[in-house]
């Protein structure tokens, strides 16, 4: 009797020791890393919450014949003020909170630091927020170490540039069509910041090739409260397009003052402020025709986009920012886990490398750098424009639900 008891105990212990990790746990712990005191982190968390609730409501993720619930760990990285804090947060969620997977990150240098910790522990880290090309280049350069990193959103910086110029070309085409202008004149209005330099150089190089004339470069401060001098100079230069490269509050000022001056030129480019719901009110309702790149809108980027954006707006009373792609990251992870039938990072990497996931803002497939493949029908982004107080999507035109692009009257 005693002997059989010990044999059974020994067998049980051995079984426990060799059982896959999934059998030993009741939930899948996903750490959401982001600057939680900022809007980017807020949307990281919101997207992840939506994914968690949807998965758990449907019974969880099937792995090893069991249904495991998703458990989220909210980790404030404090990355806007301290990169060491971000790295420590990554270490904490892995070693203390026993996170199985990491998603999120925003500031590129903080994501680099967190990436190191995740790779040290061989944890899958799905990036949602940082766009720097180098993050993916590391996978290519040192695959064995960095293979656990995958970028879900946004597309890498160089691809973002490709999208901007593709939309700019469409805007120029509209001007050519409506105003019979063969060579539209473009004024580049970029805030004085290092991140804009690459796009400025690209504009100087690409615009002549795209049969556009660059009439000048104006560089106000990112926090400027008046751009009258710049805008009057742009008017005098006869610009048809104001190519904006703005991330700071100056984006609101540009929109408001262009409206106040009834400028004939239309603004398009990157204007982070114009992506927000509050932009119209902040610009005193004068920012008609201001357009920018964006990630989500109520158009059929994929069949999931419209219902998801509506559900997000209903739950959080605001439109999703691009860091809300944590939803797609978790859903993509679910698909990969169920396909691999494993939680082990080394089992999941080859599955993720071959995955095709239809998300809310893109169809995600990964290239050899584990970056989302750029292009129509994949990860591309959309062009949006403020039209009479509403943010409407206009590009790419082949997507269902797109509205025509409008030009200011002349």
């Amino acid at each position, binding site marked *: 009797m005693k002997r059989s008891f010990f044999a059974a105990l020994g067998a049980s212990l051995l079984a426990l020791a060799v059982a896959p990790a999934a059998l030993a746990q009741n939930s899948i712990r996903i750490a959401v890393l982001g600057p*939680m*005191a900022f809007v980017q982190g807020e949307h990281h968390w919101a997207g992840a919450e939506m994914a968690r609730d949807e998965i758990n409501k449907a019974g969880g993720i099937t792995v090893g014949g069991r249904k495991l619930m998703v458990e989220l760990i*909210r980790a*404030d990285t*404090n990355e806007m*003020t*301290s*990169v*060491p*804090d971000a*790295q*420590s*947060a990554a*270490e*904490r969620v892995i*070693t*203390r909170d026993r996170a199985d997977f990491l998603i999120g990150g925003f500031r*590129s*240098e903080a994501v*680099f*630091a967190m990436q*190191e910790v995740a790779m040290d522990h061989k944890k899958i880290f799905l990036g949602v927020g940082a766009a*720097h090309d*180098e993050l993916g280049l*590391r996978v290519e350069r040192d695959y064995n170490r960095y293979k656990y990193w995958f970028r879900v959103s946004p597309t890498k910086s160089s691809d973002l540039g490709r999208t901007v110029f593709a939309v700019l070309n469409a805007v120029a085409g509209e001007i050519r069509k409506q105003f019979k202008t063969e060579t539209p004149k473009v004024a580049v209005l970029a805030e004085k910041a*290092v*991140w804009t*330099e690459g796009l400025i150089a690209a504009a100087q190089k690409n615009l002549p090739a795209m049969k556009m004339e660059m009439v000048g470069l104006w560089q106000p401060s990112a926090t400027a409260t008046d751009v009258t001098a710049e805008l009057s100079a742009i008017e005098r230069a006869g610009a048809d397009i104001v190519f904006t490269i703005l991330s700071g509050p100056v984006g609101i000022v540009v929109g408001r003052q262009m409206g106040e001056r009834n400028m004939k030129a239309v603004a398009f480019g990157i204007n982070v402020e114009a992506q927000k719901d509050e932009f119209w009110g902040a610009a005193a309702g004068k920012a008609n025709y201001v357009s920018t790149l964006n990630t989500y809108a109520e158009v059929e980027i994929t069949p999931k986009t419209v219902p998801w954006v509506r559900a997000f707006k209903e739950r959080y009373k605001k439109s999703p920012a691009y860091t809300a792609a944590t939803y797609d990251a978790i859903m993509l992870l679910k698909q990969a886990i169920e396909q691999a039938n494993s939680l082990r990072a080394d089992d999941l990497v080859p599955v993720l490398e071959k995955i095709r996931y239809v998300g809310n803002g893109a169809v995600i497939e990964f290239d050899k750098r584990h970056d989302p493949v750029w292009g129509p029908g994949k990860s591309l982004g959309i062009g949006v424009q403020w039209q009479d107080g509403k943010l409407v999507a206009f590009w790419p035109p082949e997507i269902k639900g797109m509205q025509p692009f409008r030009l200011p009257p002349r």
Partner: protein
Amino acid sequence: MYWLRRLFRWFAADVLALPSRALVALWVLVLLVLPVFYADPYVLRIVTLASLFAIFAASWDLLAGYSGQVNFGHALFFGGSAYVSAMLSVKAGVPPWLAVAAGTAAAALLGLASGYICLRLRGSYLSLATLAFPLILVGLLLAAPGFSGGELGLPGVPRLTNKPLGNYYIAVIAMLVVVFGLWALADSRFGLLLHAIRDDELAARAAGINTPRYKLAVFAISGAAAGLAGALLAHYMRIAAPFLLETALSFQVVIWGIFGGIATIYGPVAAVFVLYPITEWIGSFQAFGERRLLVFAAIVLVVLLWMPRGFAPWLRDRIETNCPRCKQRNAAWRASCRACTAPLSATERPRASGPRA
């Protein structure tokens, strides 16, 4: 055996006799044996970072506390050294240890240069001038993104060792060596001259002290110490980026210095080892983790309200007292002086703390 016995006797008579020294000895012991008993990687990371920031804070205290050269741009040495070390490692393939040494030397040169520029400045003028230096360096780095990595910085800096335990001991031992070295320096004739320069530079010059030479020397030594910490941090985190030169970091070190107690060396070190883990711990709570800066500021304000000379001198004054006759320090609970056996009054409290515990 003879030396061991002598060491033990010295330890019992000079270290254990004073509570502050016993606390320091205990702290050193805990740091050295912590991984043996509690090898939690997260805790080791926090202690590693605290050790590096402690070097940084102690180096600021030598410069600002002892010589009165209140530097508002101390991140210049920290970040400058990190960049030099990272560039040498990443771009030129220099072995990491050699790169750290070069970074430290570069920080000493930066110290000399900024000290030379500020030689004729005093008080708030000096502080404001030093505040500009890291901003200038950031501007230069951003102006040459191909060389410096621009806003992103230089990722992929090789580690000194890939073992977490190795990184821990490198940081802790570097911290102990540098902090005790700075402590000894501050307690030497050199430290005394720095005190004289801080209190009345004109009088010090009149007494025949070559004050510019000492000021330059303290800038260089402080820069080198801060630089060592910065270079080690870049190799530990595997990135050197503009955040290492941020104004916030320069002010953080001032807060650590004032919170811990300036002109003590041990004060800022204690401040880092108290405040850094506390803010990290606060950060792990969802309820107020996202307001960690607010909580941090509240702690600092409340503590300074009750302990205007800083946390460490306040604590030391609670557990130790000065002999009214020979001025030797004694444990607060002793009835008579350990040196001259004079009776110790319970109400006698030291009015000023010297540089040594």
